[in-house]
């Protein structure tokens, strides 16, 4: 029997704000343990939470980017369970009235196919602290002598984006995550760094026979630390579930952890062991009233989104999917490219220069293109010089290097240094004649049938002309004179 996987993704995204969700402590990654804490985020007796307006705005902005509805009323609830890294032993979260409802994430595959996955909701909550376990050798709690808790992260605003179960392959799941990450990064609401934990995701995976409309029993996969491990974990879990069903077994609803080393998932806790979180409205916080004006003001500042840019690059500029994606993944570079493309009206050449030579120079000097001395208008000038055959590609490359060093307008350099390509047949002919008379042996070899030496002769002519001779003309004249 062939099976279809049904996948839903839950992402936790730490928001980029100056201060934490409910207090004035700095929201920054890392630092000496327990230095970014106060009575509020330590859950001291009597301390009270006050919501961070920027975090609420970021969540609404994210919702609007995904086309979600923003209800006029929202509220915070308490999710009650005991855990040492959770200072109040409840987490302030949102239960039945999240800040955003519905919407979709548009994502694209490597071949450029545009797809979308529905969003159930985005809600806002606070992050927990971090535990470290000592004495067990491997950092695990089992066998540890004692545990330490760092509350620097406790109370950091955390946005949870829950997708509908509308994804069917591991590749799509990763493409969905890529699109979500790009969008949130572009909106400036989060750093979305998986390695720093500002983006964390869980996957709900189930399988069903192809053609069936009924959902199978799902498992929730946790501990995936990179997009690559998301891909591997989902593939592994689909395989595992298929094997379970094929051998006549039943998939059990449970939470499973991904083991990066073994490449398999393992059971963490079953549905029966799940907490009763006793959600109820947080009486320390008043319900949120989100005015239409506020939503409209946020919507009015919405930038061009990654999927919109991708479609524009494909439709308007005819860029290949991987070139478009490369640009979109480097927003400053994409904006630089847009200016070059617009000024030069040659998006193809613009993409070649921006993703090719300029990106190489940026890598070599560890300075982003957009922060270099190169102006997009100057790159457009360079493209025009190549288009008009005023210079050849070799000179163009050289010029880019000089522009990178602060050389300014390539047109100006060409004019002041006489670097314009020599297309005057008489002048080029003089160079050709000079090379031919200086290399009688090579000419003889050619005439004896070793026609590949023509490359050497072209090179000599270019050298003699200091690169300015029009290579096409050189080839043409050489062919004529050697005949």
């Amino acid at each position, binding site marked *: 029997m062939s099976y279809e996987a049904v996948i839903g993704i839950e992402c936790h995204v730490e928001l980029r704000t100056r201060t934490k969700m409910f207090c004035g402590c700095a929201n920054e990654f890392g630092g000496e343990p327990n230095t970014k804490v106060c009575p509020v985020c330590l859950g*001291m*007796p*009597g301390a*009270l939470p006050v919501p961070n307006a920027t975090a609420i705005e970021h969540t609404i902005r994210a919702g609007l980017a995904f086309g979600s509805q923003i209800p006029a009323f929202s509220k915070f609830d308490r999710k009650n369970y005991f855990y040492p890294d959770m200072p109040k032993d409840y987490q302030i979260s949102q239960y039945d009235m999240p800040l955003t409802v519905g919407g979709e994430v548009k994502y694209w595959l490597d071949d450029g196919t545009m797809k979308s996955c529905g969003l159930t909701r985005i809600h806002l909550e606070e992050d927990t602290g971090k535990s470290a376990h000592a004495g067990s050798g491997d950092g695990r709690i089992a066998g540890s002598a004692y545990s330490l808790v760092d509350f620097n992260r406790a109370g950091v605003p955390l946005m949870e984006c829950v997708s509908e179960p509308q994804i069917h392959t591991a590749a799509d799941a990763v493409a969905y995550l890529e699109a979500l990450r790009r969008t949130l990064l572009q909106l400036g609401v989060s750093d979305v760094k998986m390695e720093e934990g500002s983006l964390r995701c869980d996957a709900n995976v189930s399988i069903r026979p192809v053609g069936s409309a009924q959902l199978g029993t799902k498992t929730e996969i946790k501990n995936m630390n990179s997009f690559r491990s998301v891909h591997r974990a989902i593939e592994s879990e689909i395989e595992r579930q298929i094997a379970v069903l094929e051998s006549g077994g039943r998939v059990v609803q449970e939470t499973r952890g991904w083991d990066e080393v073994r490449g398999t998932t393992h059971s963490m806790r079953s549905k029966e062991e799940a907490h009763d979180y*006793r959600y109820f409205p947080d009486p*320390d916080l008043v319900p949120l009233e989100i005015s239409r004006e506020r939503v409209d003001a946020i919507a009015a500042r919405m930038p061009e989104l990654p999927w919109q840019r991708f479609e524009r690059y494909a439709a308007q500029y005819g860029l290949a999917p991987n070139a478009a994606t490369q640009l979109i993944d480097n927003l400053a570079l994409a904006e630089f490219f847009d200016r070059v493309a617009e000024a030069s009206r040659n998006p193809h050449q613009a993409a070649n220069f921006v993703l090719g030579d300029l990106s190489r120079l940026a890598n070599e000097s560890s300075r982003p293109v957009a922060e270099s001395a190169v102006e997009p208008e100057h790159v457009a000038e360079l493209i025009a010089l190549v288009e008009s055959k005023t210079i050849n590609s070799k000179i163009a490359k050289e010029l880019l290097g000089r522009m990178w060093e602060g050389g300014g307008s390539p047109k100006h350099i060409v004019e002041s240094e006489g670097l314009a390509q020599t297309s005057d047949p008489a002048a080029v002919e003089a160079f050709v004649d000079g090379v031919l008379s200086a290399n009688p042996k090579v000419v003889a070899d050619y005439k004896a049938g070793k026609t590949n030496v023509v490359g050497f002769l072209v090179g000599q002519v270019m050298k003699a002309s200091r690169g300015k001779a029009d290579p096409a003309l050189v080839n043409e004249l050489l062919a004529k004179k050697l005949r």
Partner: protein
Amino acid sequence: MNELVRRGAGEIARAVRSGEVRAREVADAVLERVDAVDDRVGAYLTPLHELARAHADRVDRRLRDGEALPLAGVPLAIKDNMCVTGTRTTCASKILEDWVAPYTATAVARMLAAGCIPIGKTNLDEFAMGSSCENSALGVTRNPYDPSRVPGGSSGGSSAAVAACEAAIGLGSDTGGSIREPGAFCNLVGFKPTYGRISRYGLIAFASSLDQIGPLTRCVEDAALAYDVMAGYDPMDATSIDRPVEPAAPALRESLEGLRVGIVREFDTQKLGSELDGIYRQAYRDLQALGAELVDVALPTADYGLATYYLIAPAECSSNLARFDGVRYGLRVDADDVQAMYERTRAAGFGPEVKRRILIGTHALSSGYYDAYYVRAQKARTLIAGDFERAFERCDAIACPAASQAAFTFNAKSDPYSMYMMDYYTIPMSLAGLPALSVPCGWTTPPGGTLPMPLGLQLCAPLFAERLLLGAAHAYERSTQHARRHEPPVEAVSR
């Protein structure tokens, strides 16, 4: 006894500001009074002699520097569920017995900024859960009017301190009656403002949607002075109300001309026995004599107040008290793993009443019971608030008993339900978030007792009508003078 300790907050502040007496002299006199009587009263869990003197000296300096301090030199008793930097803040619980607060509650900070002198931290029912102070795990507080009787609760330490002249203002917190009932039991004005008027920041939460700080004082003027200092928006408390506060002290009145006072049909005082019935009926007549028009009003759902309260308050408390887990502060009883540590710590740290309410609240919020208990209680709460709204269409204030009896003897209410019933008259106002106070309205010698005990009249006004409420209470107090009828016999009681 130095006569300074008998003076009210207003009198002291005027005398200190005028230079008649220094704040330090007031502090010394009150601390001497504490040293002399508190082993018999037991109001304070932690007297703050050094801090009090340091603050008094600072007040004297600030006055010399020309600062205007509305409560200059006023001795303040602080219920020990409010944080004060560097002081032990226990909630009268073993779980916080040695916890030193790293910050100061907004309400306390405002009182200190206004010139108050912190005399000490007072006893309470553990985590403010109780109506007699008997649920304290750290000490016994006695009623200064009869040491065989309770001072009321949960703000019993603050009420006893003010009644015994160990402070001029006592800060209390009222969740279902915890300021008004001890006020009535100790011959004081016990005032709970509108929910959200005074910041809860630094008040260790019992039930967040009900908790409200307020003063216990020997006269209405002092209550108004304390209210004027503490009321107002606090950016540290999202539930505090961002709305201007009109000072109440200048609005105290002498007559009740033009005021319509509602008498609640369902609160039939005949149920309280003929003596108390007579006292309350006389109180209503006294209001009338001052010019008030008595109006018959109905609160048909008020009878559900107690049941509603004992779902909402425990539900919130079960979550609020989760943080006392032995991980970061307070008591920790070690065990092999964290789960066992939680269990042992909380088993050893909480008293029986706190455990009972955590269990009730956890149950009320559990999956499958939430709708039947918590949601229905919230709906009932809305209905009760609606009753008051309708009643206030016909009247400007409501008068009723503050408690169904005078202060009782220790262990008289060993059954929890009979203790819960002590808040029958105060809980509906709490659920509706309304400002309410108790003001002395007469004396009774309870059966089996030998000493006269005070009774309190409760007055309640619409949301934010504190000025009207305090004004009316002042007129009643001035014309009746019940509080002055008897002195607390604390000095006559043998050690």
